C-alpha cells in the first residue's frame, strides 16, 4: 500500500492530480513540463545541428558566384560550378588519384587488418600481447611525427616518393582502425558457430566462406569504410610523403593559398550527399529485410 494514498483520493500531493498546487500553473507550467520531457531530444537535435552546420555551409557556397578568387562571402546564386566541376586545372586529376589511393588502401588495410584481427583473437602466440597494444600506436601517435618518421624511413631506403609511398603509408595507418573494428566483431563471435558448421559437413574453406566471413562481415565493412574515409581525406602524412604527386586534400590546401575555387565545394557536397545516400540505402535494406522476415 502506498502510504501517500493513505489520506484518501483528494491528497494534494498526489502527482497524478493535474490541479496539484505544487506545480507551476498555466502555460509556463506546460512549457516547463514539455521541456523536461523532451530535454534529451532537444539536446540531441542541437548537437546534430552543430555537427551538420559546416556541411551546410559547404553545400550553400557550392552555389555561390564569388566576385574574386576567394569563395568566402555570399554573392549570388549560380550553378556554374556544378555544371563544370572539373573546370579548375588539376582538380579532377587529384580527385581521381585520391579515390584510387583510398580504394587500394582500403583493400590492403582491410585484408591485412582482418587477418591480424583473426590472428589476435583466435590464436595464442608469443608476441600476441605486445602486438595487441602496438596495434594502437599509429592511432595514438601524433600524425606529424609519424609523417616525418615515415619520410625519413623512405628517404633512407632510397624510395622514390609518389603514389606507392603514399599508398604504403595509408595502408599502415588505416590498419589499426580496421583491426580494432574487426577484432570487436570476431571477439563477440561464438566459436561454437564454426564448430557447428564443421559438425554439419562443412570443410575448413566452406566453414570460413559460409559462416565465419558472413558473420564477421559487418565488422569488416565498418573497418573498410573507416579506412576509405581516413585515406581519402588524409593530408599531413600524404603531404610529407607524396613527393610531386598531388592528392585532393593537397590540392585543396594548395589552392587555399591562392584562392578557393567553388568546385571544391561542389566535390565536397557531392561526397557528402553520396555518403548520406549510402547510409540511407543501407538503413532501408536493413529495415525491409527485418519487415519481410517478420511477415513471411
Amino acid at each position, binding site marked *: 500500500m502506498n502510504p501517500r494514498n493513505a489520506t484518501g483520493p483528494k491528497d494534494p500531493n498526489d502527482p497524478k492530480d493535474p490541479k496539484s498546487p505544487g506545480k507551476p500553473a498555466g502555460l509556463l507550467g506546460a512549457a516547463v513540463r514539455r521541456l523536461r520531457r523532451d530535454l534529451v531530444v532537444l539536446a540531441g537535435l542541437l548537437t546534430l545541428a552543430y555537427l551538420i552546420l559546416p556541411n551546410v555551409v559547404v553545400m550553400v557556397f557550392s552555389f555561390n558566384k564569388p566576385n574574386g578568387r576567394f569563395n568566402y562571402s555570399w554573392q549570388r546564386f549560380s550553378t556554374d560550378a556544378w555544371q563544370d566541376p572539373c573546370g579548375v586545372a588539376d582538380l579532377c586529376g587529384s580527385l581521381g588519384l585520391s579515390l584510387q589511393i583510398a580504394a587500394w588502401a582500403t583493400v590492403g588495410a582491410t585484408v591485412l587488418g582482418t587477418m591480424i584481427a583473426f590472428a589476435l583473437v583466435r590464436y595464442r602466440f608469443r608476441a600476441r600481447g605486445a602486438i595487441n597494444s602496438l596495434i594502437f600506436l599509429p592511432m595514438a601517435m601524433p600524425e606529424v611525427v609519424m609523417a616525418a618518421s615515415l619520410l625519413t624511413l623512405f628517404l633512407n631506403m632510397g624510395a622514390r616518393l609518389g603514389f606507392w609511398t603514399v599508398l604504403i603509408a595509408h595502408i599502415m595507418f588505416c590498419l589499426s582502425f580496421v583491426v580494432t573494428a574487426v577484432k570487436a566483431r570476431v571477439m563477440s563471435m*561464438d566459436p*561454437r558457430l564454426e564448430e557447428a558448421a564443421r*559438425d554439419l559437413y562443412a570443410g575448413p574453406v*566452406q566453414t570460413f566462406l559460409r559462416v565465419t566471413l558472413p558473420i564477421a562481415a559487418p565488422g569488416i565493412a565498418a573497418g573498410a569504410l573507416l579506412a576509405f574515409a581516413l585515406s581519402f581525406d588524409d593530408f599531413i602524412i600524404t603531404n610529407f610523403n607524396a613527393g610531386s604527386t598531388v592528392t585532393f586534400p593537397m590540392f585543396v590546401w594548395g589552392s587555399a593559398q591562392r584562392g578557393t575555387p567553388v568546385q571544391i565545394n561542389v566535390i565536397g557536397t557531392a561526397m557528402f550527399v553520396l555518403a548520406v545516400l549510402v547510409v540511407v540505402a543501407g538503413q532501408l535494406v536493413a529495415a525491409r529485410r527485418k519487415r519481410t522476415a517478420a511477415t513471411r
Partner: protein
Amino acid sequence: MTTTDTYTGGDVRLTGISKSYGSFTAVQPLDLTVPQGSFFALLGASGCGKTTTLRMIAGLEDPTTGTVHLGDRDVTDLPPYKRPVNTVFQSYALFPHLDIFENIAFGLRRRGLKSVKKQVGEMLELVQLGDKARHRPHQLSGGQQQRVAVARALINHPQVLLLDEPLGALDLKLRRQMQLELKRIQTEVGITFVHVTHDQEEAMTMADTVAVMNGGRVEQLGAPAELYEHPRTTFVANFLGTSNLIPAEVAGTGSEVVVTAGGGKLRLPGERCPAGARPGGRLLVGIRPEKITLSHADDAGAVPDGRNRITGRITDSSFIGVSTQYTVDGPAGTGLQVYEQNIERDPRLVPGAEVVLHWNPAHTFGLDADQDIAAGTEQETAAGAGSGAGPGAATGPGRNTAGPGQDIAGAERAEDSP
C-alpha cells in the same frame, strides 16, 4: 562425402580414450561402449569430462590417447565434417545470418544436395515450426531455437546424435516437455543418442543407460534404476538422488552382513556389500530417504521385528506437498534425511521429537569406507569448484537439500572443457 551417406549401423566404441590439456587431465583413459539405437546419458558435475568425451566423439577435440570407433570403422583421425555424427550444442549455435530453413538445410547443402525443400519441410513439421521457416534464429523463443538445433542435426540422419546439455537454457516446465519430446523423437528415428547433462533427474528420465562421470572417470554405468538402487560409490549414491550414509563396523559376514553403527545393529544383504567386507572392517551403510519409515519413540514397540532401526531426534522438517522431509540427528549419524508420504501425518513428528527410523534390511546398501563420504553432495561439489567449475557449480541435488519434486533450477551452464 558419400561414405557418410552409405554407412549404416554400429555401436559407438571408445577405447582407452583420454584428453589432457598440458598437465590437466580432463578425461582419464576410458573405455565405453554405447549400443546402437540406445539413449545414453553421460551424467556428472561441471568439469567432470563429460563434454570433452562428447566432443571427442564428434571430432571437435582430438583425444590424447585411445581410439573412437563407429561400428567397425575407426574414426579417431577423421575431422568432424567427415564423421556421420551430428551435435546439438549447448548454446544451440544456430547461424544468426541464416533463416530457420537455411539453418536446417545447412548440412544437406554442404553434402551437395540440391533439392532440400521436401526434407527440410518434413523436418520443420517434425519439430512443429513449419510457419517459422523464414524467421531468423533471434526471432524465436529458447524452446523453438532448441527444436531448430535438433532438426538441423537430425535431418542428416547421423549414425549418432550428440546432445551437449541441450536443455540447460530452458525453464523447468519447458525442459520437462522437451525431455519427453526428445525421447519421443529418439524412439521414432531409432538413432543412437548420446546426451550430456548435469541434471540427474533428466538423465534418469530420458536415458536407457546412464554413465556417471566424476573427475574424468566413469564411476558407474547402468540403467537408471540399477544406479539408483545399487550405487557402488559414495559419489553415485549422493549425486543420483539423496542417500543417508552411516559409518559402521562390520560384525559378521555371510549371506547377510551385520554391522554396528551408533551402538545399534544393522543388517544388509551380503550381495549389496563391497567384496572386501570382513568382521572388524569399516563400512558405509547407505539407505535412501524414501525407504525409511519414521515412528514416534512412543510407538517404538510397534515397529515390526526384523527391520533395521536407529533412533534419533527430529531437528528440522519441511512440508513439500506430496511429502514431508525430515532431518534427524541420532547416535548413528547427523543430518539424516527421511521423506514421508503425506498420507496420514503423525502430528507428533515435529522438530524436537524423539523418533525411530526403521526400514527393510533388503533396501540397505554397503559402500567401501575408504571413500569421501560427502563425494557428490552439493557442499562437496561447491568446495571443489576451484578445480575448473565456475561459481555456483551446485549441480547435483545435495544430500541435505533436494529430493523428489524439487529441481536444480538455474543450475549453471558453464562449459566443462577448459
